[in-house]
């Protein structure tokens, strides 16, 4: 592409405007979490008191604990199932259309549809809903994401080394542990980190499958309830912490497996 000064200036202006649009709302939110005053908008000095008040808020702490349980358990199950699924599909190289649709569907199906489907399903089974039903639901989309990350890695995998390992007398388990796993491990960990983040942030499906009562409220559900009530600097502080956690997990995931964020 040709580069005239006017064109370069134009391109730079577009980049500045777009990044301002993307980051100013977040920056304002984070800055106001350190605001001394109770007013959520006017700056009146630096303070960490809203972070301190979070630490004393039992509703938020129990929601955070619930979120951690849901995210850890659903990530563990999804990583195991998603990795095995990826290996199964790629090793046989039989890409049936129905199979592809089944694996792809959880990633494109609107959250609200999966949410009401699971709500109907669980209530028809007369299942008492709680953290366990949220976990069952989160595994559905998490395993699809883990599977797609691991599959991308396996596309360039040379399956003849698996055969070679078997020919040399290694058992299937030894072959997996010593040959396949080391190759795909970065993708598996990256997929797990992605699944963890998705689960921590997921709101709609958790909201519909949590059942009644506060006992199974997750952090996003707690945040939603607080936002509906109004703006408080406490929400800003909580939002800042949640964002820091997801962004750290995603950055780690990206480093382990470049390309996960779509590059």
């Amino acid at each position, binding site marked *: *592409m*040709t580069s005239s000064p006017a064109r370069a200036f134009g*391109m730079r202006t*577009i*980049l500045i405007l*777009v990044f301002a649009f*993307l980051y100013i*709302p*977040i920056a*304002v*939110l984070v800055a106001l979490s350190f605001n001394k005053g109770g*007013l*959520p*908008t*006017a700056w009146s000095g630096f303070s960490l008191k809203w972070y301190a008040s979070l630490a004393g808020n039992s509703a938020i702490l129990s929601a955070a604990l619930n979120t951690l349980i849901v995210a850890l358990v659903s990530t563990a199950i999804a990583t195991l*199932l998603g990795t*095995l*699924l990826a*290996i*199964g599909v790629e090793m046989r190289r039989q890409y049936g259309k129905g199979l592809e649709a*089944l*694996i792809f*569907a*959880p990633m*494109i*199906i*609107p*959250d*609200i*549809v*999966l949410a*009401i*489907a699971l*709500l*109907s*399903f669980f209530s028809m089974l007369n299942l008492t809903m709680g953290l366990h039903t949220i976990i*069952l*639901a989160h595994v*559905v989309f998490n395993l*699809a994401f883990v*599977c797609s990350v691991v599959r991308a890695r396996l596309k360039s995998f040379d399956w003849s080394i698996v055969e070679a390992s078997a020919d040399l007398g290694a058992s299937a388990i030894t072959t997996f542990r010593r040959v396949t796993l080391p190759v795909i491990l970065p993708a598996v960990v990256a997929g797990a980190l992605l699944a963890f*983040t998705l689960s921590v*942030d997921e*709101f709609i499906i958790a909201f*519909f499958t949590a059942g009644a009562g506060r006992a199974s409220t997750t952090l*996003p559900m707690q*945040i*939603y309830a607080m*936002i*509906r009530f109004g*703006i408080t600097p406490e929400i800003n502080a909580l*939002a800042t912490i*949640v*964002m820091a956690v*997801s*962004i750290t997990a*995603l950055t780690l995931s*990206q480093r382990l497996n470049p390309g996960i964020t*779509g*590059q």
Partner: protein
Amino acid sequence: MAPALVWLTALMVVPCALVLALAFFRRGIYGGIEYTFTLENFGLVFDPLYAGIFLNSARIAGTAALIAVVIGYAAAYAIAAAPRRLQPVFLFFAVLPFWSNYLIRTYAWIVLLNREGLITQLLRWFGYTGEQPSMLYTEGAVIAGLVYNYLPFVILACYAPLSRLNPELAEASRDLGASALTTFRRVILPLTVPGIAAGAVFVFVLSIGNFVTPALLGGGRFQMIGNLVYDQFLTANDWPFGAALAMALIAIMLLVLMAQALAADRASGRAAEAKGDADG
């Protein structure tokens, strides 16, 4: 792979089939479900009241998709024109907000748009002393929230074809006497239609089924299909009608995806033609 397939079947395929079946039953008198076959839930979807909400949702989602594509395409174009080594960095930071919590990104707009928010304060700083503009709980706020939330994906979708574009094509077009605008319109744009279509469809589909953004930024005043489904399941307790609405949502989504596949097909045909012209 069997356990994963069982999991997906039991907790996605079966529940979705159940919702489809539910849509053909009748609502019981006390809010339960009466197991008699009926089509009236689908008839109700076309009732002027609900059809109006569908059209309204489609208009809001369409506006959001259009704005997101214009901004996202410009951003992707600028990123693709940046030095090669900077492109992955720009792309990473363009996508990063997308991976943070959706509720939080929406809340950030409440902080900006409320009566005492940054935008009002900026207006005052510039000397505006009139009536406080109410920006929150408007259709504009809903659209801004949707564009903001889904923009990163559009940037990503448009960047892919733009970065693969052969610079010689644009050069050839200019050498043959085409203006910059003609080159863009006749060479670059047609070759990048698949990215634009993918981005637009993504924003449209996710927006039309959204219930969080209309609830938070629209203050409940702007019902979209997502809110309607939410209401049937959690407040009105008319699950069969809610199920029919969800099926209508899926039908719209599939139609849009099919249109996108068609557009991409035609674009690749045209791209092959353009490439043939350029090569010949």
